[in-house]
């Protein structure tokens, strides 16, 4: 047997090595030595990210089961940066008395889900894709339930696990119909079979039912609108760091995997899935925005905000071009920094005072000016106000969709940015303009939170202005 195939999987193998080292450390380290566990975990992940920066070449292993290419490598690096920020953000949280006993589990399970996402985005066969998807979502259910004596946590876990199972079975049903129509599960072979006019698979209802069920299953993972009902509850109930992870990393990975599959596999029937996605994007952005307006809890608010952001992310998918792929990766990168800044501040405030309502932030500027300004910058970036990174990512993703002629869609999305500006400004107004006699007292955040929020704010300010990032991604992107 030829083991050199494994060399293509250097990203997965290095991450697996990190997981194993952490596992052994957590199992056999003494209580005293394990005090440094969080720091070691972050340093190891940073080292692994640095290792992945070595440029990758395109290739495939195991007879086409596993694919890798520079574009996929870039996405993995983006996901790694996001995970690293989440881990740094979680350090003060894992020190609290309830969680410190499960500290090792938190880090190992989080990295395990990252491993699953790696497999998911670089799979070349639906079997590996499905295994990766489940490897990503099963540890996440355990993570949502990690504070197991809190009602919110186990309620959210129950909702999440059942919705995850339901969506996987829809997705599997879709895959079985696709298999029945085409007779293979390799992306490349399916594209060949559908593109072959003499076989007329492209017109088969079996295939269309399969594609629609598959989109529904993925819709649950990315939380697009008819399938979004779990999002708000799970985001509110899960510990804040896990919510941050769910809202950026897991969503970004699923969106990219969906895009790769639609580009590589279902390009010959693009007209069908673009039709479906068109409607999904419109209702996702609109409903997400309208429901965000009426939220009182900041974590629920961010849940609906992330639903509408998922709609914007899908604009890159519907474009179906190399520009679409570049702008999607870029959007996810910017979204990681802006959203993690917001969640970083939420978790600082929550760890210190236990408050998560928007009204609790009244008068925050008087007591915590630096936190308020960081929050404001991040919210402006999410809304897409010009000098910040969020504006450029929205601009590129609208450009990618408009380039392919989706003018009406882009116009609806533009109208929705106005609504989103309104509700993001509600939070800014609470912090800066509203007065409150019992505002949150001046907080003294610890080093880890400071590092996390500083990196995120720098990212929000700088990424938009550094055009080399966009160009670097663009050099490797591919279209249908």
């Amino acid at each position, binding site marked *: 047997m030829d083991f050199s195939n494994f060399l293509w999987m250097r990203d997965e193998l290095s991450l697996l090595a990190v997981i194993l080292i952490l596992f052994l450390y957590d199992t056999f380290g003494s209580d005293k030595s394990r005090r440094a566990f969080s720091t070691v975990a972050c340093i190891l992940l940073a080292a692994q990210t640095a290792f992945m920066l070595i440029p990758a070449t395109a290739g495939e292993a195991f007879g086409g089961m596993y694919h890798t290419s520079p574009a996929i490598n870039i996405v993995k690096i983006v996901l790694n940066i996001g995970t690293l920020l989440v881990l740094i953000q979680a350090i003060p949280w894992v020190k609290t008395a309830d969680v410190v006993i499960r500290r090792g589990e938190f880090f190992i399970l989080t990295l395990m889900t990252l491993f699953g996402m790696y497999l998911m985005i670089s799979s070349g066969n639906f079997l590996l894709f499905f295994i990766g998807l*489940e490897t990503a979502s099963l540890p996440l259910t355990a993570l949502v339930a990690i504070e197991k004596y809190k009602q919110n946590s186990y309620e959210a876990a129950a909702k999440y696990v059942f919705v995850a*199972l*339901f969506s996987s079975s829809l997705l599997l049903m879709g895959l079985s119909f696709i298999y029945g129509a085409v007779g293979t599960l390799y992306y490349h072979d399916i594209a060949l079979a559908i593109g072959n006019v003499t076989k007329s698979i492209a017109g088969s209802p079996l295939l269309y039912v399969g594609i629609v069920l598959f989109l529904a299953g993925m819709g649950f993972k990315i939380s697009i609108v008819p399938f979004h009902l779990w999002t708000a509850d799970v985001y509110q109930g899960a510990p804040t760091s896990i919510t941050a992870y769910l809202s950026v990393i897991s969503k970004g990975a699923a969106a990219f995997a969906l895009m790769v599959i639609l580009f590589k596999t279902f390009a010959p029937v693009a007209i069908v899935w673009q039709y479906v996605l068109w409607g999904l994007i419109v209702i996702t952005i609109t409903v997400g925005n309208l429901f965000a307006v009426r939220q009182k809890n900041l974590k629920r608010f961010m849940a609906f905000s992330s639903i509408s952001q998922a709609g914007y992310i899908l604009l890159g998918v519907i474009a179906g071009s190399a520009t679409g792929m570049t702008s999607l990766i870029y959007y996810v990168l910017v979204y990681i920094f802006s959203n993690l800044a917001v969640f970083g501040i939420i978790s600082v405030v929550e760890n210190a005072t236990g408050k998560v309502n928007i009204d609790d932030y009244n008068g925050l500027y008087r007591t915590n000016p630096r936190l308020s300004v960081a929050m404001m910058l991040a919210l402006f970036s999410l809304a897409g106000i010009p000098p910040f990174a969020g504006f450029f990512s929205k601009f590129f993703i609208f450009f990618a969709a408009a380039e392919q002629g989706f003018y009406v869609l882009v116009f609806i999305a533009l109208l929705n940015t106005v609504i989103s500006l309104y509700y993001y400004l509600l939070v800014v107004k609470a912090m800066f303009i509203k007065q409150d006699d019992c505002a949150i007292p001046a907080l003294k955040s610890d080093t880890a939170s400071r590092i996390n929020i500083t990196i995120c704010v720098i990212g929000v300010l700088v990424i938009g202005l550094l055009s080399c990032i966009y160009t670097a991604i663009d050099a490797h992107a591919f279209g249908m």
Partner: protein
Amino acid sequence: MEIPMIYYVVVSTIMFFAGVYGFVTRKNLLAILISLELMLNAVDINFVVFNRYLFPGQLEGFFFTLFAVAIAAAETAIAIAIIINIYRNIKNIKVDNLDKMKY
């Protein structure tokens, strides 16, 4: 005499939608889990039947079924762990008690 393929597909479709119906209507967490198992097993039947009748020369569908069974078992294990945790906390596994977060 061989049974035509359509019979199997009808059975699996009925199983799948019985599962969907149970998922939506049941009030007990374990009953919901059983409905989900019905859905997953319907998929397994589909894969095996398509492989056996439409593409008898290959094994891809059979292998997918094997993996799907294993992963479904892992999913069930996690779901049951969460249900047991809920039972320990509130001595009850009715979904009506999990309504603290709404809207």
